[in-house]
């Protein structure tokens, strides 16, 4: 579903992403792990067609993200790290706005909003302003907006940062549902426990490069054949090296 090949991006001469290559299968939940500044968000933003790489290729659903970003945007959903919503508008108004500018008719955007708000358990708050929601609810709504167009591929950037346990659990449930629906997810996080629990495969990034790529189980097995090691320990060991 996604092929990333020899991706390179630098800012003011400083390498942010260096020779990154990986592929993600349809319906797979793929984790991008790494410390702050490892290059995860840059890779996600290139895949989301927001940034252009200096070199390399990104193909999503058969379309080049660099040459045909318009086609890629039709099949992707993006949940950014920030709460990219209008705080003075209600949950529903935000959903309808982003739905319509994403190409849905107003009627369809309203229908989708109802369904998704119910799914993220925010239907009772639909007429409330975003500014009045808790941090966790805002995160859920942020994710809900990215699902409006029924994307085939979803990019989630640190979607559980600062989220209370209840909202985090709701996000995990959604991830399970994505899996059932065969939605491909690329998920960046620095919570190892989350990645271990949710992701089919993970790529561990450090200083703009992928230093390990496999399933959490395989990575743990490589680090300790007995398997008595957490993914966090594997991560610390790899990033120290």
């Amino acid at each position, binding site marked *: 579903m996604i092929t990333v090949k020899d991706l390179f991006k630098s800012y003011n001469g400083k390498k942010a992403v260096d020779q990154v290559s990986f592929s993600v299968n349809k319906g797979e939940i793929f984790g991008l792990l790494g410390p702050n500044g490892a290059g995860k968000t840059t890779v996600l*933003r290139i895949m989301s*067609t927001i940034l252009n790489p200096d070199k390399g290729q990104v193909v999503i659903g058969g379309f080049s993200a660099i040459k045909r970003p318009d086609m890629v945007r*039709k099949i992707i959903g993006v949940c950014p790290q*920030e709460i990219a919503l*209008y705080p003075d508008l209600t949950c529903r108004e935000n959903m309808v706005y982003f739905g*319509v*500018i*994403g190409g849905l008719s107003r009627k369809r955007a309203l229908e989708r909003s109802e369904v998704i708000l119910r799914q993220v358990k925010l239907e009772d708050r639909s007429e409330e302003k975003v500014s009045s929601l808790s941090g966790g609810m805002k995160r859920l709504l942020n994710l809900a907006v990215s699902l409006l*167009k029924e994307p085939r591929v979803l990019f989630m950037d640190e979607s559980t940062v600062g989220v209370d346990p209840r909202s985090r659990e709701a996000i995990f449930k959604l991830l399970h549902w994505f899996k059932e629906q065969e939605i491909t997810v690329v998920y960046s996080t620095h919570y190892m426990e989350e990645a271990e629990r949710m992701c089919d495969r993970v790529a561990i990034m450090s200083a703009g490069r992928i230093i390990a790529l496999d399933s959490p189980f395989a990575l743990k097995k490589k680090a300790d054949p007995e398997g008595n090691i957490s993914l966090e320990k594997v991560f610390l060991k790899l990033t120290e090296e």
Partner: protein
Amino acid sequence: MKLWFIALQDLKLLKANKKELLLHIIFPLLVVILVMTLFAGKPGLYGEAFFVSQDGGALATDYLNRIDEVKGLKVFLMEEEEAFNRLERGDILLLTIIPSDFSEKISEGDIPSLEIWKRGTGGQSGQLIISLLHSLLGEMLGEVHLSLMVKEHVQDSSFFQEDSQVESFMNSLFILSRQVPALEVVEGMNSPSQGSAAFFFPGVITLFIIFSLIFHSQSIVAERDEGILERMLASGLSKGEILGGKLLGRVLQGFLQMLVMSLPPLLIMGFFTFYSFLGTLVFSFFLAAAAGALGILIGSLSSRKEQALWAAVIISLVNSGLGNTFAIPTGGGPLVEFLNYATLSLYANEGLRSLIVEGASLKSLMPQMGLLLLGAMVFMALSFKFFNCARN
């Protein structure tokens, strides 16, 4: 369709935030009412006339007194050195020197030579004052000629014993004629649109629409920082659609501001004719487009909200201080003149004043509308080049 949706969303955001609604719509409305109330009144000459008198004679004093009696004109008598220093500094724009032989020449019926020094055109009221000086001098000379003629005709009669008696008699006649002039000029207005308040009204409108670019420029940076622009781009909008929608939103907001600010002059003060009101609304689209595009350009070039704020404040201040917003700048030399021509306010104020005060047709304002449109297009082309949805 999407452009309209983005534009209407911006209006919705304005409505959703009561404080912003107050700042953008209600506050300007209150200021319009205040300014209109302050400047409501009859038109007239308001000016200051500066003199150096080298003649201490009675007729020179009489001349100055007559000028001082003109309604709305204030006379200042100065020392020569101080007067020329102030003229040099640009503190005064018109100086009249009454020569030492002024009284002598007038008393003989000869034309005295007034020395008039100007900076540029002599200021807004300069031409009026010069015309007034000529007319009062003519009046005095006419009186002297008449007295001389009367003296000549009666010198052999036994009616007047001495010249001074003739002079005294004639003077009393002239004073009487001045008190009861043959022609009385009554100052008035055909329409309130010709009053001072109507002159200041376009300045108030442009001031608020131009100052709105402070808000517009910052909102672009804020939406970029909050990831909203990235989300819009990833949703499927092109950069051009985002910019177009934002501009349309600014135009609608400027139009709304103009509409609300025009209501008191339309409904209470009677500035507008039906045509000038419609013309003003149409013209507002061009002003709002140029100001909105400039705000978007500032936002596109700024990487932080503080940068956008500072740049927009400076540009708004230059536009409002110059641009004939409340007065026509007369000092400052070529730089100020150039800056004045570079402001959007200049073309907006010229256009709106022509519409409201002079009752000009929209067609005659094509140059102003064209320049505002050109400004909007240039600002949008530059915005397209520098606009970036991605956060830094």
